């Protein structure tokens, strides 16, 4: 079974992706399953180790938090952009030491921070575990430090480690 479907979660998501792209029918399902198996093998050739996801139930919480954050920061940044003429805004660089080291978790964090307007991931220095961010509004530095350190990082650690 593991040889045939080395990454069951991945394959399942791929089938889902396939069905989203096409329309649901038995034929498409079979075709999609076949293809996802091939894709799964291809992936496992590159990455034989399975990323371990420990707690599934954290994921919905993460997604919900994220969506809400995205909405808020969209409004925030749009407002700043439109009113920037007044010249009160300052942007800033900030360094955040990260506890997580799992690369998948880091990737998810990158996705989260990028999807949230107002924060830009500049660099992650692997040997120090430091993340350098650029934030659009310097006044929010502490807020972001909190959000990363207290909200997202624990959740990601729960999921991946």
């Amino acid at each position, binding site marked *: 079974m593991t040889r045939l479907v080395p990454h069951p979660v991945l394959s399942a998501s791929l089938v889902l992706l396939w069905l989203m*792209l096409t329309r649901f029918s038995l034929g498409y399902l079979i075709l999609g399953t076949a293809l996802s198996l*091939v*894709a799964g093998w291809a992936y496992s050739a590159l990455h034989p180790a399975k990323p371990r996801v420990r707690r599934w139930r954290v994921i919905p919480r993460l997604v919900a938090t994220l969506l809400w954050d995205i909405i808020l920061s969209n409004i925030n940044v749009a407002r700043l952009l439109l009113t920037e003429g007044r010249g009160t805004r300052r942007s800033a660089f900030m360094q955040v030491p990260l506890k997580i080291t799992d690369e998948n978790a880091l990737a998810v964090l990158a996705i989260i921070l990028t999807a949230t307007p107002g924060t830009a991931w500049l660099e992650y220095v692997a040997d120090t575990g430091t993340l350098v961010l650029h934030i659009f509004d310097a006044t929010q530095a502490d807020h972001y430090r909190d959000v990363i350190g207290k909200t997202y990082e624990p959740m990601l650690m729960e999921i991946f480690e």
Partner: protein
Amino acid sequence: MAEHNLFLLLACLPFATSLILLTLPQGARGASSWLSALSMAGGLAVLFAFLPEIQAGNVLRARLEWVPSLGMNMALRMDGFAWLFATLVLSIGLLVVIYARYYMGRNDSLPRFYALLLAFTGAMQGILISGNVLVMVVFWELTSFMSFLLIGFWHQGAAARDGARTALIITALGGLCLLVAMLMLGHAAGSYDLGMILRAGEKIRAHSLYGPMLALFLMGAFTKSAQFPFHFWLPGAMAAPTPVSAFLHSATMVKAGVFLLVRFAPVLGGTEAWFFAVTGAGCVTLVLGAVVALYRHDLKGLLAYSTISHLGLITALAGIGGRVALLAAIFHICNHAVFKASLFMAAGIIDHETGTRDMRRLSGLFRPMPYTATLAIVAAAAMAGVPLLNGFLSKEMFFAEAVDWHNGTWLDDALPYFAIVGSSLSVAYSLRFIATVFFGPQATDLPKPPHEPPAWMRRPVELLVLICLLVGIFPALTLGPIINTAARSVAGADMPYYKIAVWHGVNAPLMMSLAALGVGTLIYALSAKSISDGPEGPFLLHRIRGQRVYDWLLFRLTWRLPRLALRWLSTEALQPQLRLLVLTAIAVACGALWGALSFASDLRLHAPNPGFGLLWLVGAACAIGAAWQAKYHRFAALVLLGGAGVVTCLTFAWFSSPDLALTQLLVEVATTVLLLLGLRWLPKRRSEIAEDKLLPAKVRRARDLVIAVIGGLGIASIAFAMMTRPLISNLGDWFLGNAYYEGGGTNVVNVILVDFRAFDTFGEIAVLAIVGLTVYALLRRFRPAPESVEAPDQQTLADSPSLDDYLYVPSVVMVWMFPVLIMVAGYFFFRGHDLPGGGFAAGVTLAIAFLVQYIGTNVRWVESRITVLPIRWMGIGLLVSVATGMGAWLFGYPFLTAHARYVHIPLVGEVPAATALLFDIGVFATVVGAVVLMLVAIAHQSLRASRRREMDEAAAARKEVA
């Protein structure tokens, strides 16, 4: 019939012998000379077998079809004239063969020499006996070519090479002129058959092309017979081995020219133009040749110019063209051949035995070589026209013609004077030859001590001198009948018999002969000293030598001028060529459209969409920006190109072409990455090019800008004119109507690509595969610029993070994308027939999937995990597509006939199953292979460079340790 075959044998014998000779080993001297001599003798035997027929006035014919539709057949024809001439050629040829056996040195390859000689003989004989004027030209050119090889036989010497080349160029040029002349003749006469042409004289002379025809004909004849001003190749030709000279100067080559003049005199002659041109040239040549001959110090040079002079005489006779004149011409041809051959052989003996031909060094040879001297003296006397020798007789006839024949022109009146002057000079140079070489004090400083040659080297000369005497004393008994037969065959069968006699009584010609002898002796006596001390040529005249004029002209015309012209007319630089291409395209389009381009009366316009317009503002700005930046900011240009590209995609999508938008986008991605991969190997331009700011560069740019604007305007207006034209019914309509019913797919574009016009796609994947292979092959031999061998600047920064560090997080996502992109590729592949997508799109997608892995990690990482064998993919893809196409054969259908049907599968339902899908798999595999191959081949260069660096470092480290 036997006669016919004999005739063919005669024509082929020399060539066949030549081929056999070529296969003989170098050292086969005896065998080769025997074989050659037998061949010549065999030819003579055949000729003598024909004698009765010829004497009876019959014309022998033989015929082999070659290219009848062009009127060119191997027609052979022999009449008296041809017979006489052929006999002359073969007999002198036989003597030359014997002579050469002893003359040619140990190091010379006799078989090769004889092979050339026989091929030349065959060609010469071919001219004489061909019954078709085109075939005559064929042999004519062949003599030019063979004589080229013979003259250049001793090609180690520059003189031989130059002489050979000059001879070839002059006579081949003449040959080409002759060809055109013959074509005109044939056109005028309605046939290329010699007999027909000879009978069509009046028609030809009345033809509108007579003028050019005559001019070209004479070009041919004069160049070959070394008439002024084409005479200079002949002296140059004496660089040939003496047997060759003897042959060329006596019976062959130059005689071909006069043969032609005599042969065609009744056809083309009889007009004033002919007379002036031919006799005029003849007279000038007669005198000029004689003058120069007198001044030559080289023995063979003297003889060569004497030949020119005598040929002038014959030419002058041919120009007169009367019956007697023709007879005289024929007679002199024979006489000259005999004495000139013997003289050349004698000169050869002298050269051979003394080691020099310089008359200033030769002296008093009568004592050491009395036989040879006697022979040479008799022959020279014949040349001088001393009575009782053959030369006297024909010269006498020339004098008679000069005096008796009239056509009332000034040239006619001048003829006797030319004759006297020419003859006197002839006497003078003959005397000089005899006096300086054989008499006087015996030379002591000769390279070799002189003595008599081997007997067999002298035999041919003896025989020839004997003939001189026999003919000179008993002309009517010896040559009389056959000369008459020959003349009759040229001038007409009704020509009365002309009796050649030694004694005609005391008349004007005799007086002229005596005068010439006297004056000639006087000239020599007066000038002997000054000549031998002076330069090799008459006063002042030696400075303007034909050879030098020719060299000057040849150099200018065939080297300097073409090079100059080419420098103006062509270029090796790319830019002007592309400019010309663009300008040509603009020019032809303007030529077709100027004043004619009209727009439809009812323009088919769609209301402009602001969004579309806005984005094209960006697109256009990007295009112009890319054009602006491409020189110094390549990266910016690349990005701007991407901008223009994406707006192009938008256009495709906007105007209902999802397939195109999709494909263009995919290709766009691949192209950008490709260009970037290439950019790695283009080192930065360190300094701007100073010249760029100067005026010429600005002018160039302005000019190109104008061209570009015109081109852009042109193509835009054509596009506008077409787009706004009303719809017409076209192939597209049929495809729309039939894609589903006939092709079994709803995406018409895809059905076109994999079914209706699958053959295009079939070719297209071949192109991809070929380019993939080429890129791969080229990069196997890639040597980067020295500046770019090192790692790029970015990687050598002090504070530069490693690649792994840089890609630590991004690579995760990029590896995630691998299976996703595989799914997407599958998605595009399977829906292609009904919806946008297809094998190509899928293939590029999969290739990009691989590419992303290479970008996201590194080559070694990827290749240690997955092995892609792109060339295999390509091979298999191509084979799958071709096999699908050929599958149709099994059912009796043509290549690429698609079959589509719906297959019912339980639970799943109707599933489309089309062979087109199979074909698309081939496309898919090929595309994957080709795109991956190209990308990976370039990408590997970085790896190779870094491997090289590592090796160097390791080597350096080892060195340090050691």
